[in-house]
């Protein structure tokens, strides 16, 4: 891998140098990091780091299956296995390492494998067909990968044997190892720690392992993954300095004891260390390639942080992961219920993050790594780094703004924050694929991608280029842009809008969206001007479609207050048309089971009795609930019912990006539950408190306090502004809670806009909402009085008197209900 990367980097810098590569394996370079995916269906070609023609295209001579067997340093020549020789000016060792095979008696028996090359994997998968139990010696990164591969090959009884007292002894601590062990055991792996294999049993082929503590374990197959051994034998043979425990000694320029010879990757020993990760290897390749082109780079110690997903389990470690008291302070969060273990090591002065370990949930890894590497000052409560900020949401991407430009975001490819941001500001990249192509960030292990995405979005925003929120294939605008355009051009029907601003024929996304905008702007009867066919399912017939095909009828009952006479009317209408009645959460009554054909006559009767449409079917004001209030209740501070009625009658009929609901409570006991409403009002001694952006539904959220002790007029003025701001700026089908959650600056910003008029739009909004209020008409009244609209309320065009015969009802508790969906 590192050899390939060197060629890639050299060729990207220069086309001079006659470059020849001698490879021992029969294949061109492939991704050894993702080796186990070979068992998941990835082919050797998929894992290949280059295309077949790449070497030829780059003017590199590639010899496969043809390693160098001897080096003559004096003559500066190499000799290959087939007896040919080649002269060199510069020689680079990128021979990597092989699997370390411990000297255990019986190791030569059949059924024992190492886990290194694709050839090894082919042998393993062939043998695995006959194996029932398998063991892996080595509980480090590679051993756990090998164990996963064996499970994937169908060997259920797979064990991991580790010499040390814990798994992944170089990356994680004892507690982390315990957590990892329990998670692996849950997946069916058997883990044996503190086990030293003394003998491999079997006649010719392996049947069991025998340990130094005299216990033994059955095994049909053994994979050895107990470490790596640098391939330095060639260097040693020709007199180049190697380390006592192997590895070709190099300096910070990757130069060996021979000035014409260099070594990079896992075969190199730098400052007493072999770097067994891809990222430092690539960095070494970069150093050498740069220096050969008259540059001046040096390799220095490299951060060995890693984040992996082993068998679906996140394991990460970074910085000084093992440092402990008294040299630092540790913060540990262990959650056995969720299977997570997080440890961070903080400097004694509490200022800096030194290192840490994450198991089970490594989502904080990128940020923690950057915080440690860049020595970013820690917040007062550093435990929040692993617990997550509680109490109030943290603005997304807040951490990345504090990173310096030099912060290394992608360590595999050496891409800094500055590089990524520049690819956007100067390189014209506008999406993640462009950034990847341009900077190569994320093309190695892929672990940095979340951070790269955050940086992309952050930089685009800073440029004023927001990520365009186009509504659908028919309109190349966001909802907000479309709103302004429809306003400016005074378009009044969906057809006009589509012709003027859109393309092709529209769809079920843009039709309701445009209809909503038209309603919010002009407040014209929604079934006129051909707009009926652009309405959503319920608005189309001014009623909520129900299971079975019937509709429901909901007359408005402002504030939840109703006279006995009106109750009787509802009862009689229900009886006459055989409707099911139920009290709703909105403090009114719902009538179910109406045939489409009957809707106009039902509403005629309700309207004659003084009712109007309740808009239960619309994306606009639903209800303003109330508690009993000061008229009857001994606790009531003010007349909540009157205020609720006033508010409901003010905003009835107004349409918005989504439904909105309100309530007025007469005191702090809050019987009307105003704090769960889009806007809610609670009486205080001195006036009304106004709360905004609460929602129920699947993710309920409480409303936040906008203003206190308001008089009724001011309260209404603020609500006017709040509603128009919402209508104008929200994304499609967004409730007020989500709208606020997405709002930069949150409630403080909203308060500033509404109360302090920070956008200078208050007057305009008050004017606009006044127009909507004064143009209000009950749309059901209009529908029943308009023959053309009324005509649509029949099921069959060629039999308008007949009702839909497929609608069926059955009896339940003395009323009717619709028959169940037919089994599909």
């Amino acid at each position: 891998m590192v050899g390939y990367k060197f060629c890639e980097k050299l060729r990207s810098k220069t086309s001079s140098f006659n470059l020849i590569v001698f490879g021992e394996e029969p294949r061109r370079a492939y991704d050894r990091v993702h080796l186990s995916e070979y068992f998941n269906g990835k082919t050797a070609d998929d894992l290949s780091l280059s295309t077949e023609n790449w070497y030829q295209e780059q003017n590199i001579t590639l010899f496969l299956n043809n390693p160098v067997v001897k080096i003559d340093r004096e003559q500066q020549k190499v000799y290959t296995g087939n007896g040919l020789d080649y002269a060199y000016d510069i020689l680079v060792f990128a021979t990597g390492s092989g699997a370390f095979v411990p000297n255990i008696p019986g190791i030569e028996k059949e059924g024992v494998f190492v886990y290194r090359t694709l050839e090894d994997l082919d042998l393993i998968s062939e043998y695995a067909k006959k194996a029932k139990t398998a063991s892996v010696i080595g509980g480090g990164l590679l051993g756990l990968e090998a164990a996963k591969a064996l499970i994937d090959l169908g060997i259920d009884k797979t064990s991991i044997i580790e010499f040390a007292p814990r798994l992944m002894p170089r990356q994680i601590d004892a507690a982390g190892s315990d957590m990892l062990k329990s998670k692996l055991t849950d997946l069916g792996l058997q883990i044996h720690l503190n086990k030293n294999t003394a003998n491999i049993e079997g006649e010719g082929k392996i049947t069991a392992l025998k340990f130094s503590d005299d216990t033994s374990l059955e095994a049909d197959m053994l994979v050895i993954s107990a470490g790596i051994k640098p391939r330095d034998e060639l260097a040693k043979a020709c007199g180049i300095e190697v380390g006592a425990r192997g590895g070709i000694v190099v300096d910070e320029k990757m130069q060996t004891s021979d000035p014409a010879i260099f070594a990079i990757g896992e075969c190199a020993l730098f400052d007493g260390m072999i770097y067994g990760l891809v990222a430092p290897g690539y960095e070494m390749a970069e150093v050498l390639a740069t220096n050969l082109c008259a540059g001046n780079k040096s390799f220095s110690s490299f951060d060995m942080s890693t984040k992996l997903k082993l068998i679906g389990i996140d394991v990460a470690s970074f910085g000084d992961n093992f440092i402990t008291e008294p040299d630092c302070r540790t913060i540990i969060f262990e959650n056995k219920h969720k299977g997570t273990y997080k440890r961070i090591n903080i400097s004694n002065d509490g200022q800096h993050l030194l290192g840490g370990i994450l198991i089970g949930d490594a989502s904080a890894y990128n940020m923690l790594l950057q915080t440690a590497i860049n020595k970013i000052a820690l917040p007062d409560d550093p435990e929040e780094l692993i617990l997550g900020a509680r109490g109030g949401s943290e603005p997304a991407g807040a951490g990345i703004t504090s990173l310096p430009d030099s912060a290394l975001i992608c360590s595999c490819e050496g891409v800094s924050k500055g590089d990524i941001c520049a690819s956007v500001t100067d390189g014209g990249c506008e999406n993640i694929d462009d950034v990847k192509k341009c900077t190569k960030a994320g093309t190695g292990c892929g672990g940095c991608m979340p951070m790269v995405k955050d940086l992309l979005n952050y930089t685009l925003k800073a440029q004023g280029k927001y990520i365009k929120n186009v509504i659908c294939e028919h309109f190349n605008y966001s909802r907000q842009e479309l709103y302004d355009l429809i306003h400016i051009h005074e378009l009044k029907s969906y057809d006009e809008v589509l012709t003027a601003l859109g393309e092709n024929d529209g769809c079920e996304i843009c039709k309701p969206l445009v209809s909503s905008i038209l309603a919010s702007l002009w407040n014209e009867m929604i079934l006129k001007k051909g707009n009926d066919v652009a309405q959503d399912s319920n608005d189309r017939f001014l009623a909520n479609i129900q299971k079975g095909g019937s509709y429901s009828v909901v007359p408005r009952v402002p504030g939840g207050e109703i006279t006995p006479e009106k109750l009787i009317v509802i009862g009689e209408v229900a009886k006459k048309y055989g409707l099911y009645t139920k009290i709703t959460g909105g403090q009114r009554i719902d009538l179910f089971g109406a045939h489409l054909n009957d809707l106009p006559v039902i509403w005629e009767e309700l309207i004659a009795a003084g009712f109007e449409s309740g808009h239960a079917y619309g994306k606009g004001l639903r209800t303003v609930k109330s508690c009993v209030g000061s008229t009857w209740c001994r606790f009531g501070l003010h007349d909540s019912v009157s205020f609720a009625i006033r508010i409901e009658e003010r905003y009835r009929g107004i349409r918005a990006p989504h439904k909105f609901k309100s309530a007025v409570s007469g005191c702090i006991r809050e019987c009307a539950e105003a704090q769960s409403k889009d806007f809610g009002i609670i009486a205080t001694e001195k006036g009304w408190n106004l709360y905004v952006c609460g929602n129920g539904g699947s993710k309920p959220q409480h409303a936040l306090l906008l203003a206190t002790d308001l008089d009724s007029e001011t309260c209404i003025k603020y609500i006017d502004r709040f509603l128009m701001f919402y209508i104008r700026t929200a994304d499609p089908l967004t409730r007020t809670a989500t709208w606020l959650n997405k709002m930069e600056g949150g409630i403080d910003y909203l308060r500033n806009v509404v109360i302090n008029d920070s956008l200078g739009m208050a007057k305009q909004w008050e004017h606009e909402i006044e127009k909507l209020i004064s143009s209000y008409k009950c749309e059901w009244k209009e529908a029943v009085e308009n023959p053309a609209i009324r005509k649509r309320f029949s099921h069959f065009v060629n039999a308008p008197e007949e009702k839909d015969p497929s609608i069926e009802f059955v009896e339940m508790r003395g009323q009717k209900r619709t028959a169940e969906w037919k089994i599909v």
Partner: protein
Amino acid sequence: MTETTNNWLAACRVEDAVENGGVCVKHGEEQIALFYFTRRNEWYATQNECPHKKQMALSRGMIGSITDEPKVACPFHKKTFSLNTGECLSGDECAIKTYPVKVENGTVYVGINPKS
């Protein structure tokens, strides 16, 4: 489809149809959704029953297009179907029946296959 292989059901007058929308045609026990896609100057007809939950509702759905394919979205759960082929565009395996349509002398006719 020629006249010899189709019975033509007189569905309604052109002015009874809904522009850029659908109406439902009764044919014995069957219900047929008839769409007048005015923007495309085309007529389409399909079964009225949505195969998803077997509701007689497609005639009440919004019509539109996906790239160039005309479609209808069922009002219940917004499953979409090609008005040309009846194929489900929402990725489910169910397709709907389609029928030919012709207009003569201001009357809209839907072609009913004699075998069905």
